[in-house]
């Protein structure tokens, strides 16, 4: 008490002065707010418009008119109608008649003609019998707004047809890769992507979450722990191509007997003798996203309120019982959202997979984790590097498929998080 009185008497003048300040008029403070708010609004609309431009340009390339030319004109088979309108049997007959025997047998062996869809047969007739080739492919924008001009242009070519084509179609999705853009599909790339990502999830979830739990709950504070933490943060910023080089050395070369499947007797079918397999690619991507998962999971675990841990320990729970029954259930939503987001980043990775040896051309669909593979981003990269417009269209179609897969994953993550949050909303 005494001390306070003496203190205030000594500085009483200064203190009184300090209390005679004039508040800034509200108007100026509001003005600053208005400026900042406008800037933020502009930033928001910039971001959104870029996203729309991106989506627009992809869709623009995925659909549109194509100007075909034929060595044999379709009317010779269809008597004035469309090839598509012919019966299933008639189409098979045309193929049998006009294809070289060996080609027919190869196609039949891959998938019996009778079991192929009608569209599939039309497409084969289109490219192999009529020997259709693309003279020009147009974007959706051109197809919609410059249609007259396109038709005029088409008339200057003899024996050419202007047909509206959706580059993304069931046939495109289920088809195998081919040098002919009209026949080419991405089923191999989808299977490869899914396979690689499943391997990645299988390894990165337990490793990442385990590491984070150990670091947060078990490891005592020490210099060694600090060093580990710093390194994990640094690793999350290492460019992905460097992980590719690491994967090449470790998984493709050193662990070759394991990653090629030789150790387990996998040598036939789509399997490969080298280590350039789905397993190597998945493990490389695991390394890539592991630091991010660890960091995210650590943050999730640290967000668990101490009172829950204390309550659990106070009841005589062991560390593991506390982690398993209280900490993980409490933050599983956050853990999973972060993990799924990093997995969807891994789906889109191209550079490290180029390094660890994804195939650039592969007509066989992978059938095990020891198979050769290609992935959607690699496929997109290959196609978009080609100068012809039709390959750009194929790339756009593949991008749409890739984006759909990624958005689905993100959607699942968001829904899951919402559900968990609802459960915890009463906190």
């Amino acid at each position: 008490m005494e001390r306070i009185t003496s203190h205030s008497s000594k500085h009483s003048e200064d203190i009184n002065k300090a209390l005679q300040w004039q508040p800034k008029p509200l108007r100026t403070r509001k003005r600053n707010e208005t400026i900042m708010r406008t800037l933020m609004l502009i930033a928001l609309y910039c971001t959104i418009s870029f996203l729309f431009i991106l989506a627009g340009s992809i869709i623009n390339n995925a659909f549109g008119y194509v100007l075909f030319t034929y060595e044999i004109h379709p009317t010779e088979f269809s008597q004035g109608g469309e090839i598509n309108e012919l019966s299933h049997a008639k189409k098979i007959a045309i193929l049998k008649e006009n294809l070289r025997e060996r080609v027919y047998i190869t196609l039949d062996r891959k998938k019996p003609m009778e079991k192929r869809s009608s569209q599939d047969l039309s497409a084969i007739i289109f490219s192999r019998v009529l020997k259709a080739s693309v003279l020009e492919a147009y974007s959706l924008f051109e197809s919609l707004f410059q249609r007259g001009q396109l038709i005029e242009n088409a008339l200057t070519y003899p024996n050419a047809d202007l047909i509206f084509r959706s580059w993304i179609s069931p046939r495109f999705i289920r088809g195998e890769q081919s040098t002919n853009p009209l026949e080419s599909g991405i089923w191999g790339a989808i299977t490869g992507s899914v396979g690689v990502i499943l391997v990645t999830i299988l390894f990165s979830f337990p490793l990442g979450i385990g590491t984070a739990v150990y670091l947060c709950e078990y490891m005592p504070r020490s210099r060694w722990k600090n060093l580990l933490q710093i390194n994990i943060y640094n690793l999350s910023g290492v460019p992905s191509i460097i992980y590719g080089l690491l994967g090449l050395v470790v998984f493709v070369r050193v662990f070759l007997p394991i990653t090629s499947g030789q150790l387990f007797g996998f040598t036939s079918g789509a399997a490969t003798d080298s280590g350039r397999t789905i397993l190597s690619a998945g493990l490389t991507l695991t390394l890539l996203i592991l630091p991010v998962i660890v960091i995210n999971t650590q943050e999730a675990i640290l967000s668990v309120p101490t009172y829950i841990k204390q309550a659990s320990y106070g009841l005589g729970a062991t560390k593991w019982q506390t982690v398993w029954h209280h900490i993980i259930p409490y933050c599983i939503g956050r853990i999973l959202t972060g993990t799924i987001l990093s997995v969807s980043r891994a789906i889109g990775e191209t550079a490290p997979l180029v390094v660890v040896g994804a195939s650039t051309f592969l007509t066989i669909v992978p059938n095990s984790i020891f198979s050769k593979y290609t992935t959607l981003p690699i496929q997109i990269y290959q196609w978009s590097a080609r100068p012809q417009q039709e390959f750009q269209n194929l790339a756009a179609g593949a991008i749409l498929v890739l984006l759909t897969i990624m958005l689905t994953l993100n959607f699942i993550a968001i829904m899951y998080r919402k559900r968990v949050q609802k459960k915890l909303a009463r906190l």
Partner: protein
Amino acid sequence: MKSIIQIKNFNFFYGESQALHDVTLDFNENQISALIGPSGCGKTTLLRCINRMNDLIDDTRSEGNITIHEKNIYLAEVDPVEVRRKVGMVFQKPNPFPKTIWDNIVWGAKINGYTGNLEELVESTLTRTALWDEVKDKLHTNALFLSGGQQQRLCIARAIAIKPDVILMDEPTSALDPVATARIESLITELKKRYSIVIVTHNMQQAGRISDCTSFLLNGVVVEHGRTKEIFLNPKEKKTEEYISGEFG
């Protein structure tokens, strides 16, 4: 009166700073012992040493012994998890798990290997904490829907479900309104028939009302320890008298 907890020459350190200085105290069986003192005097630290909760904090260290039922709980071979099973704890802020009332009670018993009838366990613990009639129809709703006072009684029920000998309470009513406080106090008085209770409290009247003996701590040192009546009516130390009469704190 039989002594159950003996604290002997106990020192406790957070890193370099010493929080408890040479504490020597005895707590009796089936009694309520109160720890009082101004903020930061080390009473909560002392309480948390009795069930080794402080082991969970990095960079802490202790010297000296605490024995419960003549067993030293600070021996190297003693597992703190086992200690906490025998010494239950109730915290300052009601902290039920974000689970159902039922799960809150049976979880602790289950992880400690309770294999008996769960319904009986739930009913008996809730009856003992005077909560049964209020919650018997909503055992499977989330415990966080309960009022603060009910939540705290649930925490006490949860603690006694693991069959402790001692219950530690860290200012159990400081987050509650007077009515809920009164109910908890009468519950604590009821519980001392079966358990030994050590309670930390800021509330002088509360210590006076419910405790049998009281220890006054100041800056990590036990200033005075004795029967509550004696401490409150005629304290031996001047500091105790000043604190109890509200001159500082």
